[in-house]
């Protein structure tokens, strides 16, 4: 294996054996000793002013240590109690008013969790009800406001101008203007339009969120289930008004996350309670509570796509509304990042997009695998498909003709590189037999095929750091703050470093994020780690290689240029010295370590406020395509997936086995979003927030055949040409399935999920129209 290097090899995850038998321990498995177990009393109102909070009965229960309210915490922390990545709008406990059913109002600290949970039922609250904002229409047309004024956080400088804006539920608007899209639409020959809806959904990582926090000699320490340890450290330091050096955030491997365990979840409340009471506190969310911590944005898109008489795309227009719930979280970022790709990865003469992030009285929505892009892909991939049908063209060939190529400028102004949409589309079409005749069926079961492509920008700008300790025995310890939550980052980072250092990747240990030890890394999210942290790791390994070569040059008494690092050791001409011997000789000690550090930082050109365009809005692009063959039972409306092919351009696969798992895993998650997965809210109350009621894909929902396809068009600046892949596979699943349903039975559905009821209803409506 070493002959070909470690990069590109199908190395198993280093800890698979332990994970299979459950020997890898997680945050919730750690013993906590004497601690206060915390449970939360939650709001019963969607929108109300808080009067008195009655805690006496709960306090009187045996085993209850303390009950704290938002007012108690506000007394201590003032406006610092309000945190959030884009807007500092969310209190750890509701202060003055509640904004959704289920919002934390009071925290009970008790000797055990059962006592704490029982005592929350003994807390009651006097509310003064306010008119609720249940949905996007209430929010945009009504006169009730979820927040009195907008409070941008200090994280993103470009939101500063929104501070203090009043009388609106729109906390952010992104606008893309490229040419005169309205005029081009009017002058065009063929226009298709749609009203698209993608409902709120939930991540449901099987591991429940858990946070343990304590005060140690004046420092706040925390062990927590987070993808964003560096962010959490900053948030806690700001909340407690401490220097960063007095906050320590540590993690364990996560039992899945998909965006659920990032930014402010249990951590601000845990820190505030530990700091206020001096007790060690342990917070764990039940599954029902985890549903309320964050969600995926429900999104409405009103859009059109226009072609001229020759079939060239001349205009794309879209109005996008993201329902962000009671707190903005990172919604404004989602709104912009998705707004800019709403026209899709096509050559289009003009584009106009308005994308808004909207407050409502519902549980807050935040990041979810795909970062809002699946919701707009739902629109653009349905529209272009319908336009192809309208023009009598093959939906595959019509897309292919218009797809952006290497060097093309997207409607939002940034050029394409390492984003091979054409090969992705070709390979899924080939895989599902697009060019072969289709047995469509003539009775109740009808067969169809569909394709879709997807495009997403990576999080930009960001910062990654890596520290490498090379141990005298020729093993190594890699310190990074990337969190392995199942994607296998610990494994591929070791592969990258091993490749540079010509060593066995299994001799490299990756240290779990600990802000006392591992260096700053923006976040583990947005599929950014392979490229960004991977580049920092490659650089730190190169720095270490240079150090070893310098030692080798000293050893051999030759110039550094005459020394080479090989799997056998340092070599100069015919002479070789094993690395362990060289390092031992240098220090005169066994077990000594050499240390190197490296940084990788990306830059961007912020988009223009008026046009939303930028020559470099992203460091790189994710490009993917989906092909589906399915049947529809016209009597029951049930969809059966016969073959689903998922392709992603990953630049270069560091580990093809893990890349394929990301593609198929994302596809399976996307199948849920396409066919049944949704949060149901009734007057702001979540009604299916348990796993008895909330349907998730099981092994029964696998397509008969599932084909992952790795496309490699290397990125000039990626580590070994690589980019990330975590989200690529999910972008186009829902529209590819809907397009295949359209092909099979001739109905165009625009509301997700594609339930059997919705398909039967659409078929009945079609029959009525035709008769």
């Amino acid at each position: 294996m070493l002959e070909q290097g470690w990069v590109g090899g199908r190395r198993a995850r280093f800890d698979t054996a332990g994970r299979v038998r459950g020997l890898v321990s997680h945050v919730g498995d750690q013993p906590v000793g004497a601690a206060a177990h915390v449970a939360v009393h939650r709001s019963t109102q969607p929108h109300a002013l808080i009067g008195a909070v009655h805690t006496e009965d709960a306090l009187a229960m045996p085993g209850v240590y303390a009950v704290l309210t938002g007012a108690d915490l506000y007394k201590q922390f003032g406006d610092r109690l309000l945190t959030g990545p884009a807007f500092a709008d969310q209190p750890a406990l509701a202060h003055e008013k509640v904004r959704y059913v289920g919002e934390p109002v009071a925290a009970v600290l008790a000797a055990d969790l059962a006592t704490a949970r029982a005592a929350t039922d003994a807390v009651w609250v006097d509310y003064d009800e306010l008119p609720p904002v249940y949905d996007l229409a209430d929010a945009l047309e009504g006169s009730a406001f979820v927040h009195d004024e907008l409070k941008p956080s200090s994280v993103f400088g470009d939101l500063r101008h929104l501070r203090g804006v009043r009388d609106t539920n729109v906390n952010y608007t992104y606008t893309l203007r490229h040419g005169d899209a309205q005029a081009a639409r009017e002058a065009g020959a063929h226009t298709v339009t749609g009203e698209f809806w993608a409902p709120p959904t939930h991540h449901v990582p099987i591991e429940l969120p858990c946070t343990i926090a304590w005060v140690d000699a004046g420092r706040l320490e925390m062990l927590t289930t987070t993808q964003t340890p560096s962010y959490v450290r900053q948030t806690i330091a700001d909340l407690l008004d401490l220097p960063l050096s007095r906050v320590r955030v540590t993690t364990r491997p996560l039992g899945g996350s998909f965006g659920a365990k990032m930014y402010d979840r249990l951590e601000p409340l845990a820190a505030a309670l530990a700091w206020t009471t001096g007790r060690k506190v342990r917070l764990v969310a039940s599954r029902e509570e985890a549903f309320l911590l964050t969600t995926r944005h429900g999104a409405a898109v009103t859009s059109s796509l226009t072609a001229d008489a020759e079939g060239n795309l001349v205009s794309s227009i879209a109005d996008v509304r993201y329902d962000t719930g009671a707190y903005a979280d990172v919604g404004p970022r989602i709104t912009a990042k998705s707004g800019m790709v709403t026209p899709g990865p096509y050559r289009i003469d003009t584009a106009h997009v308005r994308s808004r992030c909207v407050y409502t009285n519902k549980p807050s929505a935040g990041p979810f695998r795909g970062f809002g892009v699946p919701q707009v892909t739902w629109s653009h991939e349905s529209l272009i498909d319908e336009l192809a049908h309208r023009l009598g063209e093959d939906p595959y060939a019509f897309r292919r003709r218009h797809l952006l190529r290497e060097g093309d400028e997207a409607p939002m102004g940034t050029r394409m590189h390492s984003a091979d949409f054409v090969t992705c589309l070709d390979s899924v079409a080939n895989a599902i037999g697009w060019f072969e005749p289709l047995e469509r069926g003539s009775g109740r079961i009808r067969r169809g095929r569909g394709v879709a492509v997807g495009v997403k920008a990576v999080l930009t700008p960001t910062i990654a750091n890596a520290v490498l300790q090379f141990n005298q025995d020729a093993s190594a310890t890699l310190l990074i703050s990337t969190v392995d939550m199942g994607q296998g980052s610990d494994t591929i980072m070791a592969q990258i470093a091993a490749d540079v250092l010509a060593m066995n990747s299994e001799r490299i240990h990756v240290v779990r994020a600990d802000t006392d030890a591992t260096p700053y890394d923006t976040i583990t999210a947005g599929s950014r780690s392979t490229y960004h942290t991977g580049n920092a790791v490659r650089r730190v390994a190169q720095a270490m290689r240079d150090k070893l070569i310098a030692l080798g040059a000293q050893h051999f008494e030759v110039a550094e240029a005459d020394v080479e690092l090989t799997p056998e050791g340092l070599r100069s001409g015919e002479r070789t010295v094993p690395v362990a011997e060289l390092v031992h000789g240098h220090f005169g000690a066994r077990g000594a370590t050499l240390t190197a550090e490296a940084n990788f930082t990306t830059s961007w050109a912020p988009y223009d406020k008026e046009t939303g365009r930028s020559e470099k809005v992203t460091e790189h692009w994710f490009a993917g395509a989906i092909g589906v063959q399915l049947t529809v039972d016209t009597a029951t409306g049930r969809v059966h997936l016969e073959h689903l092919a998922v392709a992603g351009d990953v630049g270069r696969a560091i580990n093809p086995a893990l890349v394929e798992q990301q593609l198929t895993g994302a596809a399976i998650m996307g199948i849920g979003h396409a066919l049944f997965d949704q949060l149901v809210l009734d007057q702001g109350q979540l009604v299916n927030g348990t796993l008895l009621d909330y349907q998730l894909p099981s092994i029964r929902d696998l397509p008969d055949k599932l084909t992952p396809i790795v496309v490699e068009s290397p990125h000039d600046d990626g580590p070994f040409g690589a980019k990330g892949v975590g989200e690529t596979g999910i972008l186009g699943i829902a529209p590819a399935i809907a397009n295949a349903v359209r092909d099979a039975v001739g109905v165009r559905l625009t509301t997700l999920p594609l339930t059997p009821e919705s398909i039967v209803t659409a078929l009945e409506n079609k029959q009525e129209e035709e008769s």
Partner: protein
Amino acid sequence: MTVRITLKVNGVDHRVAVEDDTLLLDVLREQVGTTSVREGCGVGACGACTVLSGGSSVSSCLALARRYDGAEITTAEGLDENDAVVSSFVECGAAQCGYCIPGFVLMSTELLTDNPRPTEQEITDHLEGNICRCGTYPEIRRAVATAAQRRSPA
């Protein structure tokens, strides 16, 4: 009322004190220390808390510990690394975050004990109550087929 019961977990007797409403899940995690048994939903709908009692699968998040006095409980920690199911899961890469996988391993063990050569449909039928949110189902299906082959070569 507190009572003392004996659980034989992975071959070792554990005397534990439980209340009438203590869950088997909590006893295994907090008193026995087998943390491969995990709460994912608390309502018996995800399978992360699966254990084998006398070889039969049980959702320990719904099981009252008192009823298991004297039972022989197997958790994933109790399986040998060379066990056919365990080694097949490892070789097929049938774990991403791995949080749910011990439950799948135990369900697969139960299946192969009752039905040494299951069809693909029978594998699906037996595992459909377990949720892997990373979507490792294709690898899990391959692992179960591999384990069947390994346990009883045709």
